[in-house]
């Protein structure tokens, strides 16, 4: 693959990654989106802002997170050396907080007093409620009525943190509908409200801005693996729902063409069943939620319902930068079923004493397939994007246990 511009130069000034991305919103939101774009462009290079962000990531989030060599698991699989980027050790238990800390700092500088967010599994909602509590900002989180039922502990966490959790009963009553409702709130309260989107999707600048806040993951991995092994990894593996943990890991390696980038989507009950959340592997391009990207849609352009055992991957779209990286061939996207993800979940728990989130278990499941095909001195980095505490009920239910 050849191109004149570095891959890291994307997107263009209107947020396009090739044909993907852009700003597809009703006119009322254009002005706040342009205002946000301007603020982000100013502060992303502002030394004072960056120093504050770095201090928060260190002292509040707990960064840098370790890069852990899973020696026992690697030995058992009999191939590549697997390293785990421990985003599960972040405050609130996942990579989501890297982004909410950044956007909250931006909201404060823009003088916004009210924060809104959408959430699926509740991880982004908790990470948003957390930073809002710390900054004394009003916080409203939209969550599908279905998801509220499935994720009661996270709902309670958000309420403890002082957030108002609003059930969304329209459409399929899940993450995509929560996103619609958050957009409706934003259009109604544009003057004082900052919308913290939790993934690398939405209208420009969100895909690029969230990627920038999450890119701390890949920057740390780069430094850590160079210090540890003296060279770059052979492959990076991360799960992809909207794709923020994967984009954060991949971005600092985009120009290192020898580093194989692999995103793992949720194949749910199997790609052939249609009950999955794998738009890159089995969807087609379209426009939803402010950007052009791969979607789960029918022949009429209606968005179809998705399925995944992990609520955090249960989304019909994907970040536009992933859509573009797929088309230009810089990254590879594969899919892992619910069942395979559960195998990854149990394998890591038993061999390394780390209980991973079901989202991250998709990446682990693919690593489990891939590692044995690689040499013993090969290096495979897996993003362990979150911890599994939130998923204990789901896994127990599958094992026939009521907690």
């Amino acid at each position, binding site marked *: 693959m050849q191109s004149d511009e570095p891959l890291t130069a994307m997107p263009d000034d209107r947020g396009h990654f090739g044909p993907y991305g852009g700003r597809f919103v009703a*006119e*009322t939101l254009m002005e706040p989106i342009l205002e946000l774009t301007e603020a982000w462009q100013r502060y992303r290079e502002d030394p004072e802002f960056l120093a504050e962000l770095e201090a928060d990531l260190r002292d509040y989030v707990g960064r840098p997170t370790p890069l852990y060599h899973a020696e026992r698991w690697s030995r058992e699989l009999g191939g590549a050396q697997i390293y785990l980027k421990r985003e599960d050790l972040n405050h609130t238990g996942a990579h989501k907080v890297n982004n909410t800390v950044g956007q909250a700092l931006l909201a404060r500088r823009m003088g916004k007093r009210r924060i809104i967010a959408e959430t699926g599994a509740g991880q982004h909602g908790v990470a948003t409620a957390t930073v809002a509590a710390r900054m004394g900002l009003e916080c409203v989180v939209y969550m599908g009525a279905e998801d509220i039922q499935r994720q009661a502990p996270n709902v309670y966490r958000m309420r403890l943190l002082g957030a108002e959790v609003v059930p969304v009963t*329209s459409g399929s009553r899940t993450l995509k509908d929560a996103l619609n409702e958050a957009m409706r709130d934003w259009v*109604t309260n544009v003057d004082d409200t900052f919308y913290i989107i939790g993934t690398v999707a939405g209208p420009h600048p969100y895909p690029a801005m969230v990627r920038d806040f999450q890119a701390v993951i890949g920057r740390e991995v780069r430094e850590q693996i160079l210090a540890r092994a003296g060279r770059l990894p052979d492959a990076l593996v991360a799960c992809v729902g909207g794709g923020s943990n994967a984009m954060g890991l991949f971005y600092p390696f985009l120009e290192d063409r020898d580093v194989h980038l692999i995103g793992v989507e949720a194949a749910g009950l199997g790609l052939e069943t249609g009950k999955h959340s794998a738009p890159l592997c089995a969807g087609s391009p379209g426009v939803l*939620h402010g950007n052009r990207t791969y979607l789960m849609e029918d022949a009429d352009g209606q968005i*179809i319902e998705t399925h995944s055992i992990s609520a955090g991957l249960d989304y019909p779209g994907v970040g536009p930068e992933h859509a573009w990286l797929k088309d230009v061939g810089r990254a590879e996207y594969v899919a892992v079923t619910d069942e395979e993800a559960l195998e990854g979940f149990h394998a890591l728990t038993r061999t390394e004493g780390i209980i991973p989130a079901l989202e991250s278990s998709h990446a682990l499941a693919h690593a489990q397939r891939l590692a044995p095909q690689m040499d013993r001195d090969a290096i495979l980095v897996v993003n362990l994007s979150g911890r599994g505490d939130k998923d204990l009920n789901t896994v127990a239910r599958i094992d026939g246990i009521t907690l």
Partner: protein
Amino acid sequence: MSRLGPVLEGLRAAGRKALIPYVTAGDPEPGATVPMLHALVEAGADVIELGVPFSDPMADGPVIQAACERALAHGTRLHDVLDMVRQFRERDTETPVVLMGYLNPVEVMGYERFARAAAAAGVDGVLTVDMPPEEAHGLVRALRAAQIDPIFLVAPTSDRQRIEAIASVASGFLYYVSLKGVTGADALDVDAVARKLREVRAVTDLPLGVGFGVSDAARAAAVARVADAVVVGSALVRRIAEHTTDPQAGRAAVATLLAQMRRAMDAPEAAAS
């Protein structure tokens, strides 16, 4: 050739304001739509706005969201909507029809294929709410080639520069969103609308329609005093929702409300000021 320009210019020359009702195609079921469109014209509609149902109507409030869900539950697809327009045209070749919806169904059909099919069906204008002018180049070109007017929104948050950019790609009329919010919201401030419309008129000669939040005859009359066209949607769709099992009763309820709006807009005190 779009009927929008001649119809709106004719009304302007006569000193009258256009009444533009919105209904979602296929709500509460596909067979109800064509009779409803004729009933709207009989009750005083000058232009019809026909909603294309979409699974994720982000700019719409709960009333039109529910209408989309009812229509989709009956499998109303974009080509069905075009077919409804074609059937409507068998009896009505005069009343302009504007399709209002979201970009994705059009994107998936393909811009040129959609524009040709829409023109053949008798569509006069197309408004895709989630497509600002920056992203509109391809669709606008396809619509123009098919002699269909691309209709765009102007919002309370649009500054002069944006209004100019929008006016430069739009034709037919400009649709001014009366409030910060979704369709069917209850925050209409007619004085604020009047102030913003003066700003818009300084930039363009296009007719100005106003919608979002026009819920009764009094508000329709108040908006008619400051705008060239009044768009009313959620208030009518609410009547349809109240009669989902009896489309004929729904049609009568919609026609009654629309006729009230027509009378209030045409009353001398409305026209005089």
